[in-house]
């Protein structure tokens, strides 16, 4: 019974109201109202010779522990940095359990030449998940390559279950929750001298969000503020000079979890991880 009440509250009362009573009731993402499949927002990098790959796993087979003999279809949806829809494509994947998809190629076929976001929705229903009131979710793995920055791919998984696609209607729902109160996210990672850091921030909520990025413990910190519409993304770049000390970043917004995807560009290599 307790679980039923908790689920009802989670599904029907926004976290920003619950937060006024207790922090413990906050959930980062909404529960879809109906039969849906969920995806994270993944960063698409096509500019400056970046290549983006998606390691697409056959969920139908993995969740049932059997190899499905039919080709499957996954649905890619793309958004530009302003959060505008810029295209979608149904991509056939092979019967094998893993297919590496060249996302730049898919984006290019849709005329997309700028960085942005993409979501991946599996079209197969996995009905036994309903028994546990769970939703099928694509949380990633995205591989990034850039011959100028390093010789091999680096991988990162998704950051937040951000968007739902309903099975019975052609609608999407943004799932990110936000607060009435400003929150601070302190990146627990030192930005070290002689590297350049590119931090990608995403707005998974249905409301335009204001962000402020500043550097911790600086008397005159460099600050950058910007608005990010729903589905929008922003790249913050910070090169830490050899002569500087390490830098720590604070991100202010009304998101409960404004953690960025971080690309660390070193002199001969790069790395990617989520904050």
């Amino acid at each position, binding site marked *: 019974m307790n679980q039923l009440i908790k689920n009802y509250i989670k599904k029907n009362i926004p976290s920003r109201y619950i937060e006024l009573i207790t922090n413990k009731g906050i959930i980062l993402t909404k529960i879809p109202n109906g039969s849906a499949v969920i995806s994270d927002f993944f960063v698409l990098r096509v500019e400056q010779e970046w290549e983006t790959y998606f*390691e697409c796993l056959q969920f139908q087979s*993995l969740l049932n522990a059997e190899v499905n003999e039919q080709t499957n279809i996954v649905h890619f949806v793309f958004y530009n940095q302003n959060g505008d829809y810029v295209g979608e494509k149904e991509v056939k994947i092979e019967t094998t359990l*893993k297919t590496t998809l060249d996302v730049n190629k898919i984006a290019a076929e849709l005329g997309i030449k700028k960085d942005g976001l993409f979501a991946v929705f599996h079209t197969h229903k996995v009905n036994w998940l309903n028994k*546990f009131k769970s939703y099928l979710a694509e949380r990633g793995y995205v591989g990034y390559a850039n011959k100028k920055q390093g010789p091999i*791919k680096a991988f990162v998984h998704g950051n937040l279950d951000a968007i739902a696609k309903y099975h019975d209607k052609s609608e999407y729902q943004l799932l990110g929750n936000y607060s009435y109160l400003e929150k601070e*996210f302190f990146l627990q990672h030192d930005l070290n001298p002689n590297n350049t850091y590119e931090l990608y921030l995403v707005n998974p909520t249905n409301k335009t969000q204001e962000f402020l990025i500043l550097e911790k413990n600086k008397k005159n910190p460099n600050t950058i503020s910007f608005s990010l519409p729903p589905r929008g993304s922003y790249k913050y770049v910070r090169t830490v000079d050899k002569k500087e000390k390490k830098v720590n970043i604070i991100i202010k917004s009304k998101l409960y*979890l404004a953690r960025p995807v971080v690309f660390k560009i070193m002199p*001969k290599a790069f*790395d990617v991880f989520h904050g």
Partner: protein
Amino acid sequence: MPFFPLLSTNKAVGFTSIFNFSPNNWENHRSEKKTVWALYSDGRNWKTKKLDTLNPGESKTYYYNDLLENGESKTQPLILLQLRKTPLAEKLDQLPSQEFKYTKTPEWRATVGLNLLDSQTSYQGEINPFPQKASLLTFHPFIQQKRVKNYFLFINAEKLPAYRESSIEIYEANSSKFIDEIKVFGNHANLIELDHYSFSSTDLPVFISRTMAGIPFGLGISMDNEMLSLEHTHPPASFAVHGERFKVQAEIKRRWFNTLKHKNESIN
């Protein structure tokens, strides 16, 4: 009981940056001085070392080789870093409890990474000791075909200091074919080389342990040693969100554990 892992392998040396500041300003946390302790197991006891005291807002990076010199231990056990108020005895028979309240959204994390020549790779991580009665199932989509040496990295920490022995069974998921079985140890970072199995670009290696849980990673090292690539693989619960995810995980594990038969079972 969060600890921050400091791992090392014979291919790249580990580092961990530890932070005395919360990742957010809205979950209760008391800002105060904290002392960093290192703990590692010699197989019989947890050995402890007091490191530094960090003021609120400070961070510090530790390198594995600075804390545990070659020869001090025959293998490369996992070092666990912990923030503490009170001192620890020189030897312990189990891991100590935490003394601070930590955040959940996100978890309070360290930067945990590997270093080789001028390249580093890292993830944001922490580790809670795993129960002994636990298992592992993970799919590994990180095999790179060109100019890369591919590894599976598996770290485990348990409350007791024993180097408990277990094994990782390796299968190819499309065919459910048994590939190999590798011995692994508790309270260690275990590195498994993958290239001699000749996985193709569409193969999906799957790693299972029926008697040990841990955190699995894909590690790639470029042939010229100029770049590292590290990312953890998901537990099966990540295929679903909301609801009873851990029951979903148990169901996926049950199905795969039944499907993936050990070579000895296949013969029978």
